[in-house]
């Protein structure tokens, strides 16, 4: 249970997931924010006005999936790193999960990384197809990872295997 372990339930995730039709149509955000806290940068960041219900900043953001074009601005802004972009139109068998990442080092495009689920369990090795850096002010990167379709709602973090010299 989320409040005991930090892992949202399947039911919670299902409630914030777009329809199969919307997923097939191209990139879309999935906002895995399940608690009323005073926070609204996602709403302030969305140029499409796709995030609704934030007239009180304590509300949980609601996404209009049809207005969302999956640009990822909200995902890079979210202080809780709780927004993911799913692109199920990537290939017939694979989807791309774009996830916020704030660890050193960043992976590189074409690098194979270990994929982790919401419990931090290993799902296998997956290819990074793009690293979208946050810039000198934001610093939160979006890592684009290609996964088999059935893992688009499983993979939520990555681990890099490279040996890093930390000094």
């Amino acid at each position, binding site marked *: 249970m*989320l*409040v*005991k*372990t*930090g*892992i*949202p339930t399947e039911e919670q995730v299902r409630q914030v997931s777009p329809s199969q039709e919307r997923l097939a149509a191209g990139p879309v955000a999935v906002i*895995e*924010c*399940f*608690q*009323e*806290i*005073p*926070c*609204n*940068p996602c709403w*302030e*960041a969305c140029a499409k006005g796709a995030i609704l219900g934030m007239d*009180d*900043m*304590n*509300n949980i953001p609601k996404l209009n999936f049809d207005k969302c074009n999956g640009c990822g601005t909200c995902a890079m*802004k*979210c*202080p*809780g*790193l*709780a927004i993911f972009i799913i692109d199920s139109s990537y290939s017939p068998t694979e989807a791309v999960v774009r996830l916020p990442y*704030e*660890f*050193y080092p960043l992976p590189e495009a074409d690098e194979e990384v270990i994929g*982790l*689920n*919401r*419990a*931090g*369990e290993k799902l296998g090795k997956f290819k990074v197809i793009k690293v979208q850096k946050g810039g000198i*002010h934001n*610093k*939160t990167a979006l890592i684009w990872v290609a996964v088999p379709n059935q893992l688009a709602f499983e993979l*939520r*973090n990555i*681990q890099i295997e490279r040996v*890093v010299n*930390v000094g």
Partner: protein
Amino acid sequence: MRETEVLVVGGGPAGMVAAIEAAERGAKVVLTERDDRLGGQLIKQTHKFFGSQKQYAGSRGIDISKLLEGKLSNNSNIEILTETTVLGIYEDGVVTMEGADKHLKLKPKRTIIATGASEKFLPFANNDLPGIYGAGAVQTLMNVYGVTPGQRVLMVGAGNIGLIVSYQLMQSGVEVAAIIDAAPKIGGYLVHASKIRRAGVPILTSHTILNAYGQEFVEGAILASLDDKWQPIAGTEKDLTVDVICLAVGLSPLTELCWQAGCEMKYIPEFGGYVPRKNEFLETTVPGLYVCGDAGGVEEASAAMVEGRVAGIAAAESLGYGLNNVQALKAALKDLEELRSGPAGEKILKGLEKLLAKGETAC
């Protein structure tokens, strides 16, 4: 004797904003800070802040600190005294301080206390072993000086500080073995918990630390599960090999100066301890003495900054400075209300209700 219009004690988020607000309205301000730099805990916060744009949401604490420092140094009404510790507030309104091995005296017309909070401790066997730190110490070592506290950490406390510092440890390349909390639920924001959990760190609720062990420094800790009466369950002991135990078990307001000044004080558990009684403009029962930020009740930094606004405007207003102060105060109070209006603010509202309640015994 040196005089000033507004003295702000403490250069953290609340004090910096209070100084800026008072000075921008025309008051002469002296801002004292015991550390050698301003920013308080902001300079250790690598995460993005919650709240809305008005409270710098989406910006990291370190960047907010730089922004506020810029505003302070551009204002000729503000004199900043770093490495200066306020020692006492006397009956005649004279404030004494120590800076650069010198004893200074200052007579301000208004004083704003923004001294923050100190960390609470936890009783368990061997809790004095080297390698056991307050969460703030770990942040100072890591994020100010770039030194890691060790290699493998047990975090005690799953409130926002425990969760945030765990994440910061991981960003510094340190392994977090587990986060434990005696409460049956995670106290901090669940988005923080989720981002740590998906990196593989277990969060163990209803768990406590029985003892630490080690010869010269921490070598491990014994944990146990707690029953619904918060008592350790025999047979559930776990041995965890760690070289760091980090305590994030709450904060207490630093109110020595309020006590000394003769403020009426009240014990408010929701605020972390004794806090001065205050009106909605944050003036204590000692006329001209204001309190803002954690010193008046432990809360988030976003709220501390808005309280700084309230105290700064109110102090300037009482000296006859500034235009449209009423609107500015109303706007700030509305921001505070917004920040506290959700479930996350319930505890603060409950504390405020107790603090404002009439007819109860206070010190």
